[in-house]
């Protein structure tokens, strides 16, 4: 079965408290040199049947209407290799 990955991240202009909390903690843990951290979601979908353009278009629609909240989030869809 093929795997399609949908990554959902907050839009750049939206506050990301989770990423900020991680970033602020890093120096205390001894990790320097990370200028910014953003935290998002990763969905791994196991797709039955061929992952052709039609299937990807459907997953794109699914991401747009359901997996991501496009008021505040962006997403990308890609086939996992």
């Amino acid at each position, binding site marked *: 079965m093929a795997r399609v990955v949908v990554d959902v991240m*907050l*839009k750049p*202009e*939206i*506050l*990301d*408290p989770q990423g*900020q*909390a991680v970033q*602020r903690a890093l120096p205390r843990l001894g990790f320097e040199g990370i200028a910014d951290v953003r935290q998002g979601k990763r969905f791994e979908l196991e797709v039955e049947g061929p992952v052709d353009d039609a299937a990807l278009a459907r997953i794109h629609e699914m991401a747009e209407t359901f997996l991501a*909240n496009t*008021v*505040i989030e962006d997403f990308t869809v890609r086939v996992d290799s």
Partner: protein
Amino acid sequence: MTLDTVKHAAETPDTEQPWAELGLKQDEYARIRAILGRRPTGAELAMYSVMWSEHCSYKSSKVHLRQFGEKAPENDALLVGIGENAGVVDVGQNYAVTFKVESHNHPSYIEPYQGAATGIGGIVRDILAMGARPVAVMDPLRFGAADHPDTKRVLPGVVAGIGGYGNCLGLPNIGGEVVFDPCYQGNPLVNALCVGVMKHEDIHLAKASGTGNKVVLYGARTGGDGIGGVSVLASETFDSTGPAKRPAVQVGDPFQEKLLIECTLELFRENLVEGIQDLGGAGLSCATSELASAGSGGMRVELDTVPLRDATLSPEEILMSESQERMCAVVEPGKVDRFLEICEKWDVIATVIGEVTDGERLEIFWHGEQIVDVPPRTVAHEGPVYERPYARPEWQDALQSDDANRLPRPETDEELRAQVLKVISSPNQASKSWITGQYDRFVQGNTVLAQPEDSGMIRIDEETGLGVAVATDGNGRYTKLDPYAGARLALAESYRNVAATGARPLAISNCLNFGSPEDPGVMWQFAEATRGLADGCLELGTPVTGGNVSLYNQTGETAIHPTPVVAVLGVIDDVARRTPMAFSEEGQLLYLLGDTKEELGGSAWSQVVHDHLGGLPPAVDLDREKLLGEILISASRDGMIDAAHDLSDGGLVQAVAESCLRGGKGARLVVPDGLDAFTFLFSESAGRAVVAVPRSEELRFTDMCGARGLPATRIGVIDGESLDVQGHFGLPLAEVREAHEATIPALFA
């Protein structure tokens, strides 16, 4: 492009400005020009436009809200009244309590989770800004039809948002409302209430005084949140290649807010704060102009010192940003170091952004150049005031003459029984525990009562047991039938709920949710409701201490039901004397207090069984409410009753069913002489409560009611495992529970 400085504005009087896009009317723009004696700069225009918006200036509602002051009852308990972030009430033992309701309706429709979450965040900062530790929240909610697909999107998101934010702040959620009606389909109402406690000497006000005192901005960095229309302005006056997209939705960071609370309370404890204001709607524009306006001098702000999350923000956008979790304090110069130290302790970013001046102007600079020079009062407190035309809608008469008392009633006991089950299982009457179970009601360890009790109750002193109780109520159906009476019914119900738990009602806050003020019919509803509420508060002796107005809740031409939500705060000297709602002792006698008339207009029964809204709402007699309240309070204090539950929508059968389920005990009811079973069970006459009286107290209790002239009718006894109406039907408690508790999870889980 060049910065639009004050100097530049004076030199270029004919520059076109986007006042209309920013929501200003032509005469408002002209007035700004007249105030300033020149055209406003972009930054000034931005400030005036948000501060003169309906939301911030109350321009349509102000003329009506004045009554709350004019008709305010004599009341020694009021320490801070309308006009501050929230009113403050003396509850004795040197404690003061502040509480307020606000709306976050529209944002919660767009993005339910974040809209509701930031609604909690905003009201909590208002309470904090008064000097108080927030101790509880409540959430009066209204949604579209329970089975509408969009309600499945909105309700779970709103509930998760309120829980997500409030739980993370450590504030017990002690009550609220959940009401469904198709009229709220495109305009859900998300109102949020917060209660805070402080000592008298800790009260803080939003004002900037003392020349040379520093203005400190602390909390989250400023980002492009909620700027909306102001980006128009930024793109007009600035390089239009900047990032065009500014999110209209704000994302809350409850962790940051929790730090802000603890940090601010520590600043208060060390007496480091002269004046303080939270940043909510209109952000820095609001905070700086309100602080300066209420203080004695002027203020100078270096806007480029504001810590940013997004370096591309223009000065206009910084002024407008509604980034959450920020506060602004006025601090004596000698205390600034300590102030910043405490902020550092709590990992809170704090920056001196300006100072109080001896002038009378609010002056804002951007990299040394002046971009704002205004009299702060004209921004914050002297905005436009409208006397909007209002008129009783034509349909009102027809609505009122469509009498609900003429609707067909059940003809057999079988039918009566079926209708009882239908009403208590309908979404509006069903148990909301699936929702409230997502809220922490135990945190802080002072919760005496929480939902589903009649009011939430919080202990505020561990030694003496001093406590406060708060309830919120509003019935849009009643208010639609008669706005004047509807507002008074909301007040009466909330008052009754507080008294039912044994607390003495002291003060009122409210959130007035209506349609468009530009519709004369809506404006009439608003005028009538405020008049009703103001008159009612005078009659009950409970002053309005503050509140909020939310207008334009309508889709196209269709407005929501007029929905004034009324919150009543009460005090109880010792929470050990509180009266819960549960029927838990077999053999105790059930008494119905008050008169039951045939009043079905706007009732739950008429909605559930006939999908009908018409006629007149129940009559309100506030003297009677007061008397009922006194009886309930005395009975609690003197230990004459073990349970009490107020009667409201759904009538007696609803109340008895809830109290039985809460205590896990059944009841045997007898229809009193002079009433038919249907009216007895379903009428929604106001001014009533049902109480459980231990047999040993019966005489004392009935004597007291008799002596004070309150009708008290013995209607049955706590008994067994079913809800029986003698001679009519019996309902096993398990069946009642299933009917009452399964509905909401089935719809939303």
